[in-house]
């Protein structure tokens, strides 16, 4: 039985990171910008397995460049080209009044003429974010179809599935539905009461939120739930907010883990950092400790971030490493619920035609 707690061990670990000359102690912005620019252009064939979430790779890259202040490295022509590609992935409604296919798809590897090519709720969310980041006014978004299409995705339980022909349903897609509704300024597609009830029922005995009722509380689903509740303006219905904050704070080791007794992982700096920001408890986070941890997963050769020290960087962890760092430090303002820069959000507020 140790009398020195594991907490004290963490601080010893932080000291050794600070003292290690092999670990850079700054965010290697240039390297990350290069990493994401590469993602925007071409991806090697091993990314075939990410074909069904290609639009999310676009969103991660654009949002990262935006947060790093390098979005304007892209020429106006290049931005226009990207906008055209995004719109090419929008489901074209056939005038039948059948909206269940609507939204955006992930990739053009299956042609848009295919009836079986349905919009996917997460791809619709990242498509809208990407357009907003690029300064598009959303005037070509088929808002009516998307909003009415969302209705086909909400289940009796209040949860959402991601695609109208059927899928798993959980907190992730309630989050996507909330972001879409917010950005299109139209909540007709979401029964907020039922959605809120679903999320609240998925708050576990631990205080955090699970993906579904009875499941284990987890950092990602906690973020999705808190952000969705904030966007729906129903956060005040959480019965034990103190316990929720306590659980989120307990996730910090140096960086954050996603569940008790699991390893800290780069992306949880965002999931928990943003959750605590939304819960107005960001000041309780130890920013220096989080920074130290992220310095160990930052790839000083290739740019980007890996989930763990010594692993290769991937686009998801690279994005959340940067977003996680900024949402906690406040160095670059980020909309904690939508996960785009405040610069992009402000532009949307002024210019969106929806």
């Amino acid at each position, binding site marked *: 039985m140790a009398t020195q*707690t594991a907490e004290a061990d963490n601080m010893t670990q932080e000291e050794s990171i600070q003292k290690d000359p092999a670990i850079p102690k700054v965010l290697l912005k240039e390297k990350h910008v290069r990493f994401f620019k590469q993602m925007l252009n071409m*991806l090697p064939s091993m990314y075939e397995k990410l*074909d069904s979430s290609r639009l999310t790779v676009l969103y991660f890259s654009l949002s990262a460049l935006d947060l790093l202040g390098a979005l304007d490295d892209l020429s106006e022509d290049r931005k226009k*080209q990207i906008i055209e590609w995004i719109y090419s992935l929008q489901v074209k409604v056939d005038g039948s009044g059948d909206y269940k296919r609507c939204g955006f798809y992930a990739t053009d590897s299956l*042609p848009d003429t295919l009836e*079986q090519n349905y919009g996917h709720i997460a791809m619709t969310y990242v498509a809208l974010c990407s357009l907003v980041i690029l300064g598009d006014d959303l005037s070509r978004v088929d808002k009516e179809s998307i909003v009415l299409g969302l209705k086909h995705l909400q289940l009796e339980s209040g949860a959402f599935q991601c695609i109208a022909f059927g899928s*798993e349903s959980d907190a992730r897609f309630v989050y996507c539905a909330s972001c879409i509704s917010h950005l299109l300024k139209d909540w007709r597609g979401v029964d907020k009461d039922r959605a809120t009830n679903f999320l609240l029922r998925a708050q576990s005995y631990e205080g955090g939120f699970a993906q579904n009722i009875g499941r284990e509380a987890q950092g990602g689903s906690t973020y999705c739930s808190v952000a969705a509740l904030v966007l729906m303006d129903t956060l005040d219905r959480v019965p034990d907010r103190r316990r929720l904050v306590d659980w989120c704070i307990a996730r910090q080791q140096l960086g954050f883990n996603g569940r008790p007794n699991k390893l800290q992982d780069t992306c949880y700096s965002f999931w928990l950092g943003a959750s605590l920001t939304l819960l107005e408890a960001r000041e309780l986070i130890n920013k220096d400790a989080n920074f130290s941890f992220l310095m160990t997963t930052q790839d000083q050769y290739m740019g980007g971030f890996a989930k763990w020290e010594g692993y290769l960087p991937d686009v998801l962890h690279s994005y959340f490493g940067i977003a996680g760092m900024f949402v906690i430090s406040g160095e670059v303002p980020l909309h904690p619920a939508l996960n785009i820069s405040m610069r992009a959000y402000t532009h949307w507020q002024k210019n969106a035609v929806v």
Partner: protein
Amino acid sequence: MSDSDETPYSERPDWKDITPIPLPCGDVVQIMYSDRFKDVYSYMAAIMQKKEYSLRAFELTTDAIDLNAANYTVWHYRREILRNMNISLDQEVEFADAVIKDQPKNYQVWHHRRCLIEMTGDPSKELDLTATTLGKDAKNYHAWDHRQWVVSQYNLWEGELEFVEKLLQEDLRNNSAWNHRYFVVTNTTGWDKEVIERELEYTRAYINKAPNNESPWNYATGMIKGNGHSMVDFKSFVEMCEDLYSRQIRSPFGLKVLAEIREEREDYEKAIDIYMVLKETPTVRDRYWDYKVQCIRELMTC
């Protein structure tokens, strides 16, 4: 997975009637698809365009899934073929087994598995499937999700507490196992005071084995507070916390609970004492302990 014919579809005589739809090649997030990927997916697109539900279309989806098991459009098309034709669902369940074994964190295959079980109405293999998957990664979220679905959908509660016990014997820090226990009790006996006492007894044993384990502390406080009680309502639990403290056991989880117990009793100064103990050596949560002290001081002035 796909051990059959490796000949490109473009060279197969029995596919001559199909005109493949080539994949576009742009320059926005452009994946450099391999030749095999382009071949398979150009034929997949053509078959779907034609709405052909056939054995050859079914085998094509196997190749498409092998290349990208996250393609939900292909999985759905495969299910449509299954529904339209007399293909053995037993074999399909085995196919799902193989993909799960290879990619246990893939959402689409677990959803497919659930659809299959709904089609067959036979959940008899699911406890073994999830147990095997958890044997390799005891915290796999998909496996636990599937197990909870099967258990509640088909009333397979018997044996679940024993399953949890077995996993906790292997790793008492497995938070997923603790969560499952909570789920099982909630859906069987429910949480009357007698059950809470029994579960607290169970939890106490694990806390004493490793006081610095967050999971049983969350379990204990969760069952108490989640059912409308206060910790002071449970004497032996409070005694355990005081006892650990008096024996100099400095678990941050135990100390936090003790502070909250004292706060429940309105023993505010004594609660602050505990937060001070938590701050004796610098920890990552110092700002948080300061905040807790501040909250208590605010209560004291009320």
